[in-house]
């Protein structure tokens, strides 16, 4: 969360010019010692991390929130401990968190025979923590909403209902009903709604630059891969006869074309979730990179006078990112529904 402290500093600079100048001077000194590396700074932010980094103080002291590390290796079995044990390159039970090099950001295990071994890492990382937070938020919001509906029944929507209900209706009417159709859409509504709100709220939480928010969850390829896999699996499981017929033996195509057609169809099959995965990942990561780059400009130019322009641009980008957050959730849900709709469609 380097950009957090930087934004705070910039904010102070704008409100208290003299004091701020001093503060930023000292910050500059701290960074100058290591020579500010925008590339490292940006990729540190968008990558996952074993701890929640809040700020780096001028005396190079880090304020971090440690997160649980859960490791499984064949040699030492299951190991659970806090990430603070591995801070500053400390070794704990033979485990070491690499700061640079080939295994940068990964935990490796030292063994007696001096071999490096990478254990399976099931740690509650920054992203997992953020996902859990999102899950709690979503559960709290929608279960209480569900209870309200259960209690008030069919009376007119009140309060938060009035905000959420149009979105639910939007997912139902403009996504599910349009692409899947009246007969079969109901079965897929829970998945579409869950993915829509999960992606949207994750995106929104990713934009907020304060602890405990700001993790780049939906800009992580593992998360988008899992989401795309869900769409893929649901599509294949619910696919009808016609769908498989189109893949194995496309009607109206001569049989001798099958050796070409079948691999093509299979590529099409895989490329759909692949596109879903890349689109979400790239869009959200790109947004984070742009915002961080504009922030970095201040430190690259080492000038306080760049700050107002940077802030204005960051503000502008934040607003655009809020739009992108809901847009990408919509696109993901719409395409998922489209793929499902294509799979369940029956020709007459």
């Amino acid at each position, binding site marked *: 969360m380097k950009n957090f402290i930087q934004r705070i500093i910039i904010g102070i600079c704008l409100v208290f010019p003299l004091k701020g100048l001093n503060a930023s001077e000292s910050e500059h000194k701290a960074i100058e010692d290591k020579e500010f590396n925008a590339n490292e700074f940006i990729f540190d932010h968008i990558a*996952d991390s074993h701890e929640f980094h809040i700020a780096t103080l001028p005396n190079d002291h880090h304020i971090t929130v440690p997160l649980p590390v859960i490791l499984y290796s064949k040699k030492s079995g299951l190991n659970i401990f806090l990430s603070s044990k591995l801070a500053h390159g400390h070794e704990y039970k033979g485990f070491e968190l690499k700061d640079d090099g080939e295994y940068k950001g990964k935990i490796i295990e030292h063994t007696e025979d001096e071999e490096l071994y990478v254990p399976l890492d*099931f740690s509650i990382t920054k992203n997992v923590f953020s996902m859990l937070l999102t899950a709690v938020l979503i*559960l709290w919001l*929608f279960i209480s909403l569900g209870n309200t509906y259960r209690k008030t029944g069919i009376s007119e929507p009140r309060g938060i209902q009035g905000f959420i209900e149009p979105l639910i209706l939007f997912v139902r009417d403009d996504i599910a009903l349009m692409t899947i159709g009246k007969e079969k859409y109901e079965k897929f509504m829970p998945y579409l709604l869950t993915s829509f709100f999960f992606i949207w709220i994750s995106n929104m939480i990713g934009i907020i630059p304060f602890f405990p928010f700001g993790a780049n969850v939906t800009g*992580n390829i593992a*998360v988008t891969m899992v989401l795309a896999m869900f769409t893929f699996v649901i599509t294949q499981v619910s696919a009808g006869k016609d769908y498989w017929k189109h893949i194995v033996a496309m009607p109206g195509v001569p049989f001798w074309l099958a050796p070409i057609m079948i691999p093509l169809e299979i590529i099409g099959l895989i490329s759909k979730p692949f596109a879903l995965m890349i689109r979400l990942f790239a869009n959200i990561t790109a947004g984070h990179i742009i915002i961080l780059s504009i922030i970095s400009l201040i430190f690259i130019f080492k000038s306080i006078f760049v700050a107002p322009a940077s802030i204005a641009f960051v503000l502008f980008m934040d607003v655009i990112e809020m739009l992108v957050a809901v847009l990408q959730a919509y696109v993901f849900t719409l395409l998922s529904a489209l793929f499902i709709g294509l799979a369940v469609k029956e020709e007459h």
Partner: protein
Amino acid sequence: MDLLTPGIGLIFWSTLIFIFLLIVLRKYAWKPILNAVKSREERIKGALESAEEVREEMARLKTDNELIIKEAKEERNQLLQEGREIKEKIIDVAKGQANDEAKKIIEAARVKIESEKEYAISEVRKQVAILSVEIAEKILKQKLADKRDQKQLIENYLKEIKLN
């Protein structure tokens, strides 16, 4: 590149979290929300439909009423027409009867007058006859006072008879 390599831990956790979310939300959030929204929509639809039905019913009743009023008016007119006709007929009949009666009365009066007249005439004749006889008697008495006159008269009569 590290950015494009999905880590096993994140795959595991995100799968777990997402499945958990899916199951819990489906049961406790999406089902009640979607059901409530659906039943509300159905109720609104039903209400609109029944309103439409009522409207149609009203329109039908209105046309019915108009029809009834029209029929009633026609019937009234017809009744009035009939009454008028009956009145005229009655008047006609009465007139005819009155005429006939009057004619009869007049006829009877005429007959009576005729018979009275005849009676009166005959009465007058009788009187005249009596009077003339009396007058003749008086004249004869006067005239036949003289013997010569009597003789002459008898001769006149006799002459007349001879002539016959």
